[in-house]
């Protein structure tokens, strides 16, 4: 396993080509990196090099999280996402989810390892009493346990699948979220769907994400998006035109680059950061190529 990356250890843009600028449209998604880079797993492709040792990015103070969620709601945000690290390592995760759900639909991205039956029951109760939808996204990359655990660590497949079954049994419909580490031809989507069906999940939900050249994958591809490249792309396809991420240190341009100093936006409030940004990070090319969004749908 690679050691967690210290802050600022990112691959610079590979060329001096001028980067395109994307206008900000409206705030659709607020991402809350609640546990910083603290995680009980240490996946080889992790976008922010999270892990169990001393995190390079500290967990977010709960009051700061609440302040930004309240501001986002007032600005008309559509969805709030909790991420990390592993969000269920945060001592206040349940009250924070309750606070968020009073204001907006809320999603948690988790590896599932800490969702025991009591936690699944607590989440189901929270969802049942909430005005808006609560979604739980459980990460699992490969339907084959050995191949999955080579990426995510020993036992990760079994524990993630157990969490999915527990959540499903409690009436929540978890979304299996996979990083697409394979090839386009391997029908990973279909095989993950089949895994869920074979596991007794009657309403299988799968979300695919591409690999980004950042965190433990820094230096592996990517590049600047130039103004010429943007001529063929609808700018609204890029999630930086409608998302911001809050983490220790401030507000960041998007969930992929959350916590990295070079992606931090200037401003004292969330509203201050809803301004155009430059597509000058190697990871920007992946969004441009795939049109992928980290949102649920």
């Amino acid at each position: 396993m690679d050691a967690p990356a210290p802050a600022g250890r990112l691959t610079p843009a590979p060329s001096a080509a001028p980067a395109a600028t994307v206008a900000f449209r409206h705030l659709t998604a607020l991402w809350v990196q609640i546990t910083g880079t603290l995680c009980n797993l240490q996946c080889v492709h992790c976008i922010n090099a999270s892990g169990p040792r001393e995190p390079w990015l500290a967990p977010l103070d709960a009051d700061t999280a609440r302040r930004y969620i309240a501001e986002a709601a007032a600005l008309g945000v559509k969805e709030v996402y909790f991420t990390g690290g592993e969000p269920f390592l945060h001592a206040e995760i349940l009250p924070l989810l309750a606070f968020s759900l009073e204001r907006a639909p809320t999603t948690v991205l988790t590896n599932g390892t800490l969702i025991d039956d009591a936690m699944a029951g607590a989440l189901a109760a929270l969802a049942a009493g909430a005005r808006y939808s609560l979604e739980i996204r459980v990460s699992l990359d490969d339907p084959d346990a050995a191949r999955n655990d080579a990426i995510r660590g020993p036992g990760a497949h079994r524990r993630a699948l157990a969490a999915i079954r527990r959540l499903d049994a409690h009436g929540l419909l978890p979304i299996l979220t996979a990083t697409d580490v394979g090839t386009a031809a391997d029908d990973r989507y279909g095989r993950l769907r089949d895994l869920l069906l074979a596991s007794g999940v009657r309403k299988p939900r799968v979300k695919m994400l591409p690999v980004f050249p950042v965190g433990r994958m820094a230096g592996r591809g990517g590049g600047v998006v130039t103004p010429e490249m943007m001529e063929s792309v609808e700018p609204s396809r890029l999630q930086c035109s409608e998302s911001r991420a809050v983490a220790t240190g401030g507000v960041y341009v998007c969930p992929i680059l959350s916590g990295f100093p070079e992606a931090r936006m200037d401003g004292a409030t969330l509203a201050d950061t809803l301004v155009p940004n430059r597509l000058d990070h190697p990871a920007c090319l992946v969004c441009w190529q795939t049109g992928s969004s980290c949102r649920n749908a």
Partner: protein
Amino acid sequence: MSTLTEPRALRRVAVFGGVYSNAHALAATLEDVRRRDVDAAFCLGDLGGFGPHPDRVFPVLKAAGVRVIQGNYDQAIALGHADCGCGYTDPRDNHYAQISYAYTLARTSSEHRRWMGALPAHRRLRLGEAEALLCHGSPRAIAEFLWESTTPDGLAARLCDDARAQVILCTHSGIKWHRRLPDGRHLVNVGVIGRPENDGTPRVWYTLLTAEPGLELDVEFVPVHYDHETLAKEMEAEALPPEFAETVRTGWWTTCLEVLPGRERARGRF
């Protein structure tokens, strides 16, 4: 984006979305509307897709004087896009969506494609004292889904502010709902008449809005029963996917489920 404004205030209107080539449900809806003493009927777009014989709905809409805006499906068919623009990522959903789209594109006359291409994106009207904006997905994006469980009050208020409207009427998602905001403004997803709303019955829904002086805006969802068995048989005769006919007969959605939020998905069979 083009917007048409109604010249005079209206008291009662019927509004529906998502015809989806379902000429039988369209006829039954308009027959019901005729008994309701409305000033006008509006359709919020998505005339084709899913059902058979797409050209059949246009003369019915025109003869009844329905005032139509453009949906993402209409825009895509008019411009000959590669797909419907719903943005599915599940290969299975894309498979079914593509069958439906290719079928509709190939069977929609050039005259009807031109007509859809000229439809306005929005309409504005006065419902009594209230300013209403009619759109397809949302006022800000033709293909944005506004589901009840994922549309916070703060977003609804923001959309009303930006549209300078006290009432927003939309469709696109396929399931009706109504939110009265604490400040008295309204967001109404009027539902669709072309496909049942994943509730286990074959009926479809349209919306009646009534603005009486001095009274709160009245929003009534009206169920419509139609000859769904004939529609299902026509779909089978046209070799459209059997999963589509199953939805028409049972009322449960069988495809394109990935866009549903958890709460709405939990209510369905699949």
